[in-house]
């Protein structure tokens, strides 16, 4: 039997590459919801882990702040805040610095830790299209809000028939292609790392020494950092492109 989580061709042998979804069965929920196989997606559980890590780290960093920094902890906290303020300021300008720096910082921290979750043996939440899709939807909402706020609802509607009325279908497709491609980029990069890793382990068999580690360095570390940077940068550039005043 082929389940959605296993590779189609791998049903006969012992080899499986895990697909986009991996679930943890929760038998005690069966009675509550009246379902047969109640389970929870592993991406949700690893997101909880990410949330706990981030909450604890930033709670510890933000305690007992003094006007003049004395502890290394406060210097680190100020460096993080200053880094994201500067990052948003160079990408979006001073006007957006105050309103967007907290969101961009939170998104970047959450994204990069989610991408690195594979190093802890958990599944990357970003290898689940529903996670990256919801982040891309937030970006889409921000873009929509910025467009309507700066150009007015009429201006937003008018932007669909610019520069020519026959461009209407292309403009509509273009508007919806952005969140889809943004979600698929992060998802595809993370999942392809997992799939390629699984294939390499399968191909090498019992000789899987050193080679998977080098590839893991690229797929788990380099790709994770670059992709979260791209995701955040694209969020900022989509929002600033939607600004009719800029």
């Amino acid at each position, binding site marked *: 039997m082929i389940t959605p989580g296993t590779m*189609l061709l791998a049903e006969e042998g012992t080899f499986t590459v895990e*697909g986009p979804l991996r679930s943890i069965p929760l038998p005690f929920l069966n009675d509550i919801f009246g379902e047969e196989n109640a389970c929870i997606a592993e991406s949700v559980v690893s997101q909880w882990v990410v949330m706990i890590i981030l909450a604890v780290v930033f709670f510890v960093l933000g305690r007992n702040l003094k006007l003049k920094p004395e502890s290394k902890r406060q210097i680190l906290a100020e460096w993080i805040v200053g880094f994201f303020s500067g990052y948003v300021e*160079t990408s979006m300008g001073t006007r957006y610095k105050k309103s967007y720096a907290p969101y961009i910082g939170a998104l970047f921290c959450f994204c990069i830790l989610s991408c690195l979750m594979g190093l802890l043996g958990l599944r990357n939440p970003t290898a689940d299209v529903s996670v990256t899709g919801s982040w891309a939807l937030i970006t889409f909402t921000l873009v929509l809000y910025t467009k309507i706020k700066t150009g007015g609802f009429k201006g937003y509607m008018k932007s669909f028939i610019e520069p020519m009325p026959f461009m209407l279908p292309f403009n509509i497709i273009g508007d919806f292609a952005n969140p889809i491609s943004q979600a*698929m980029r992060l998802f595809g990069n993370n999942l392809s790392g997992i799939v390629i890793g699984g294939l390499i382990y399968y191909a090498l068999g019992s000789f899987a020494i050193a080679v998977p580690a080098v590839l893991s360095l690229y797929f788990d570390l380099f790709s994770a950092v670059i992709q979260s940077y*791209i995701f955040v940068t*694209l969020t900022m550039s989509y929002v600033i492109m939607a600004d009719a005043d800029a």
Partner: protein
Amino acid sequence: MDNLGFVAGASAIGAGLAMIAGLGPGIGEGYCGGKAVEAIGRQPEASGAITKQMIIGDALAETTGIYSLVVALLLMFANPFTGMNGIAK
């Protein structure tokens, strides 16, 4: 050959063919990186801004490759053709 075997084999070939689309983004990103290195060589003090633009350009060039990857992954993991017209799931 049963139906499922045929669908599985055809899907594997399809997934491989879909990934040929990886050529385009590869060439595009190569141009992008090369031009960025040229620009940094001419103007080393602007390397930060150039790198940022290069990464955005890379990300946009990558989009078509990502689409082909999604098609390949769909064929491997969430095959729409199994369970259709009496093909066993």
